[in-house]
């Protein structure tokens, strides 16, 4: 269980990244969604014990992130994939995972090899394990990042923007992998891609400007936009003011807009069932207003 209470983080003296955030995260897969600059990465880094909060309390699996002992205890059960992943280009994936496994305290050689081989298999890099990582594509590097996070059988997996740079097939595979992992550990998935969360998380929070705007299930977020999502067909002109265009599609009879808001009477608007993305956009729109 992760408990965040009145958490505030300010960079320097004037740049607030998190403002009195309160959250409780249980077992399973938890999604953290928000626009760029919302404070997601800051929150992830605080939970991983990498960043010191300015004020507030954070307890991760019973450990206080502000104490040295607590941080070490958290890191010993943590799998972490940072947003900006860096790898040593001159090492092979195998050498790098061996290195990380040792740092994670897997001192038994047989166990280490077993775990490395298993994770390489999971991320589909067995055949490329001995290649220098400088020759890897962005997606392959990301997979090495995921593999190193999985080493050590973590109880808490924090993945920050894991799908960035991955092709659709790799994204689906990663989402499935994380969902499988969530059966035995807590997975926190931070992303600005709503689709990633909608496909895999049963619990989520939306963060904007350092504050929690929403906390609940994807169904609850979708429900917020119910009755406010429309398809409008026009011959070319954009829908009126006050409506947020979610998508635009050229069809045979004209242009079909998917909008959020309340269309004016007389417009050819058809009420449609909202998606999680609609719910998210409605929420962001409301927060701006």
């Amino acid at each position, binding site marked *: 269980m992760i408990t965040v209470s009145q958490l505030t983080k300010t960079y320097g003296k004037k740049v607030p990244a998190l403002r009195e955030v309160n959250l409780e995260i249980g077992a399973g897969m938890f999604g953290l969604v928000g626009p760029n600059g919302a404070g997601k990465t800051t929150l992830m*880094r605080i939970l*991983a*014990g*990498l*960043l*010191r909060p300015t004020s507030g309390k954070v307890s991760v699996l019973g450990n206080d992130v502000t104490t*040295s002992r607590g*941080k*070490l205890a958290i*890191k*010993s059960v*943590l799998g*972490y994939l*940072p947003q*900006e*992943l*860096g*790898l*040593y*280009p*001159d*090492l092979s994936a195998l*050498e790098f995972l061996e*290195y*990380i496994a*040792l*740092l*994670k*305290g897997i*001192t038994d050689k047989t166990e280490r090899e077993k775990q490395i081989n298993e994770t390489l298999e999971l991320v589909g890099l067995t055949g490329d394990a001995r290649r220098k990582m400088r020759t890897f594509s962005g997606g392959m590097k990301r997979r090495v*990042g995921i593999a*190193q996070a999985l080493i050590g059988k973590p109880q808490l997996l924090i993945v920050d923007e894991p799908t960035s740079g991955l092709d659709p097939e790799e994204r689906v595979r990663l989402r499935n992998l994380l969902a499988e992992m969530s059966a035995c550990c807590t997975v926190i998935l931070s992303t600005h891609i709503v689709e990633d969360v909608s496909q895999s998380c049963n619990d989520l929070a939306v963060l904007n400007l350092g504050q929690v705007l929403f906390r609940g299930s994807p169904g609850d977020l979708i429900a917020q936009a119910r009755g406010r999502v429309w398809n409008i067909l026009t011959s070319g002109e954009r829908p009126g003011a006050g409506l947020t265009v979610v998508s635009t599609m050229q069809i045979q009879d004209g242009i079909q807009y998917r909008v959020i808001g309340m269309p004016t009477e007389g417009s050819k608007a058809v009420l449609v069932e909202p998606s999680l993305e609609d719910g998210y956009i409605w929420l962001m729109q409301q927060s701006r207003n």
Partner: protein
Amino acid sequence: MKTLKQIFAIARTEFRFGFRRGAPVAVTVIIGIIVSAGILLGPLSNVSQLPKNLSMPPEQVARLATIGLTPSEWVLFNRDIMGDMFVFSTVMAWLLIFTALLLLPMATSGSIPADRKFGVSELLRSTPITGFVYLAGKILGVLATVLLVGALMLGLFFAITEIILFSTLHYGLSLSASLFLIKLSLLDGLPMLVWGTAVGVLLGVFFHTRRAAIFPGLLAGGVSLVGWALAFRAPGQGYIGMTDLAYYYLIQNYHSSALALESRLGGQDTNMFNIAGASRVGVGQLVLMYLAVIAAFVILMALARLWLKWKENF
């Protein structure tokens, strides 16, 4: 055990990178060349003046007999004299090892900034290692690179010396001279290599790029050089001048065959290292010197550790 393995893992990875990054290797090679050239230039220019042919006429054998030497003892003395001449020329040239204090901090200061450059730093900090383990592993890894290259340079130096001596005089370096140089390397050169490397690695904690760490590294080298020379200045005045206690201690205890022969021939004590008025330096003082170095290192390590904790919550 787990902590040791973590330190070893970081050190091993760093050791691999040490050779690939090149700077520590290149600088250690340069230091080795400077020291070797300094040492070899003096004695080798005099090498032709020494007797090459040791077969001697009967009257010379008789003259040797008057001072209680046989021709074979004379040959041995000559061999040792060559070694000693070599050593005497070497001792001052060995001061060039001080270049390690000057240059190594600059060469090794890129180790920690490189982790930041590659973006691996955050990943490493997410593993259950402490800042101490990280720093210790980094220092050991870079040090292993520097010491390996240093040892190779020393070996190369001995090999070149032996080849030159054998080809010109048909003698090798005497055992006592060789042991003296090895002692000098271990007790005098080694601490300087360790200090120069450790200071450089720890300095890197404060910088985000390798380039940014170059000038501060050179500055730290200068401060190390002056600090070392001032702190470990020999108690004697005159010939030895600014050199350290380990060096002084070694010289004091070096028993030269050449000087022994000279004193036997001339009936006088001409030990050039007995400096009038200088107090004798014992092992205790040598230990004190190393304790002072270790204390300074611990302070630097604590500062680096605090910086990591403060800036990176590590």
